[in-house]
């Protein structure tokens, strides 16, 4: 091939791949623009602080915001200890080629790929029908108490779903703690658990927090797993017990978008709800990015 035509093909390929990249950025911009333009005007204090009214055609999303927050809080409390300790096992305690560690890694990879709706089925089959029924039988509840959809079961389901996120990011954080810190601590006579608690985990804390934030932002947006483990169509009251059902921003979006009796009337509410949900997840992602870059810079400065 002549040099000129080789250059032409090169230019074409660069343009083509650049277009693909531009298309992704463009779609993101389009989505954001659409949601902001149509939603920003309706996000008012009343909207944020009132429950829905007029059969979902008026009012606000206060119970959905609180429901989402409570759900993700419970989820975080459940997933963090398990996820962090699993990562600690993989990075600090397991022998490099240990069989158990290999199995744990395979499980984590596959857990990350299980469809979210299957987590919903699992939550229903395991938490509600197996654990919940068992608890009702043991505790002697006559009617269904634990064996029904509720915020506890939904958050535990989400905790299983976000487990891989926490494990992977914690392991990355542990990897970033320099080996010298561990050997120095051990050389001073500290035991392995003392080293872990006073040197390794504090050093990895920013990375672990990043993982928590990422898990929260992932968990807060998932709707499929909570469809039949606890989310409710409409509840004026906030969840008061662990077995209460709850409203949720994502589920509310789904309900408004697909089951509204009057599409035009709910449109502004729908856009405003989506905007709140998007801002929430983006804010969380931004926090994660900031923590990450700050620790990276600090680590780069230390060496």
């Amino acid at each position, binding site marked *: 091939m002549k040099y000129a035509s*080789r*250059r032409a093909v*090169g230019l074409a*390929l*660069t343009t*083509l*791949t*650049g*277009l*693909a*990249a531009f*298309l*992704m*950025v463009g*779609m*993101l911009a389009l989505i954001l623009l*659409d949601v902001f333009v149509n939603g920003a005007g309706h996000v008012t204090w009343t909207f944020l602080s009132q429950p829905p009214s007029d059969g979902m055609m008026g009012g606000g999303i206060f119970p959905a915001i609180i429901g989402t927050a409570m759900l993700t809080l419970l989820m975080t409390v459940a997933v963090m200890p398990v996820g962090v*300790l*699993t990562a*600690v*096992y993989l990075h*600090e*305690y*397991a022998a490099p080629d240990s069989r*158990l*560690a290999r199995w*744990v890694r395979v*499980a984590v*990879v596959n*857990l990350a*790929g*299980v*469809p*979210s*709706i*299957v*987590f919903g*089925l*699992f939550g229903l*089959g*395991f938490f509600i*029908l*197996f654990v919940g029924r068992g608890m009702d039988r043991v505790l002697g509840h006559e009617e269904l108490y634990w064996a029904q959809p509720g915020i506890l079961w939904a958050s535990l389901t989400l905790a299983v779903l976000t*487990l891989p996120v926490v494990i992977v990011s914690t392991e990355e954080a542990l990897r970033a703690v320099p080996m010298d810190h561990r050997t120095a601590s051990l050389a001073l006579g500290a*035991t392995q*658990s003392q080293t872990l608690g006073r040197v390794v985990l504090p050093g990895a804390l920013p990375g672990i927090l990043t993982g928590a934030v990422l898990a929260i932002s992932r968990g807060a*947006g998932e*709707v*499929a797993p909570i*469809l*039949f483990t606890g989310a409710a169509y409409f509840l004026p009251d906030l969840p008061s017990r662990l077995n209460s059902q709850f409203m949720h921003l*994502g*589920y509310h*979006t*789904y309900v408004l978008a*697909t089951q509204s009796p009057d599409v035009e009337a709910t449109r502004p509410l729908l856009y405003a709800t989506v905007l709140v*949900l998007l801002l929430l*997840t*983006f804010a969380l*992602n931004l926090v994660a990015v900031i923590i990450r870059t700050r620790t990276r810079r600090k680590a780069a400065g230390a060496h």
Partner: protein
Amino acid sequence: MQQGLTETMAVPRLSAAARRRQLREKVIAGFITLMAFTGIAALLLIIIFVAKEALALFLEPEARHEAGLSKMFLPQVARQGRPATFTWQPVSNIPKVSMIPLFIGTLKTTAVSMLVAVPVGVFGALYAAEFAPRRLRELLKPVIELLAGIPSVVLGFFALMVMATFLQETLGLNTRLNAVVAGLGLALAIVPVIFTVAEDSLTAVPRSYREASLALGATPWETAWKVVLPAAAPGILAACVLGFGRAIGETMIILMASGNAAIVSADFGDSVRSLSATIAAEMGEVVVGSPHYSILFFIGVQLFVFTFILNMLASTWTKKVIKRLTGSAS
């Protein structure tokens, strides 16, 4: 004899405090090891408890009569004198539980999304890894992360509210919600997956490959296209397989934008119903323990098995590319 030997070896006697400390270390290590089983346990519990609820289909005669394997996968005569068809109509006087329309729906939306997401994701990754100026590249990655962070219910909403109308007007489709709309919405969700994994394996290709190729007189695009891309091929394949798995399992986008009608046809402009959306749409109103309920769990088992296989393939291929590149570079 043996005993006498150890006695004379005189192991240094540990103080009580040291022994307590040793014991505590063992307990902590044991506890952490125990916690590590949670991931494995979760995966096992998922398969056990999803499969358990589906098991009635094969064990209970009543359920087997209403929804046996032949009813799910072979054409059935709904009314006498009519030709046998594939129909999904689990709630009617005579439940019709053919899974074929759901398979067709899933394949249609997945096909549309892959046709769009694979070229866009892989080319975008090639641009980011090979052609883009460094500044642009460092901007591109967080933007894609942002796209990946959008909850799928928002993408479903966008497909439903904006893309559906636009596509109907430009393509002149019969129905507003169909396989094309759902598939394109789905593409938005899987493009970041494909991009990220593909970009990772492209940047994993050692610099020496590029330098050698350039030194031989190849242009940058020839290096990218004929050296870097083939070297990262298993990783790119893994990216596509991973995206495929996500597309099969994704629920909310399809539930909101596909029209949810179980139609057997080859037309991508028709409404479709996917496996995952069927679970989401019908589980809320089903009688616990009924054959219909068991079928929905059986669909869950199928989704689990599909994605499990795809994930194992993808992770093997990703490992392969890392091994190949680091193995030959060192």
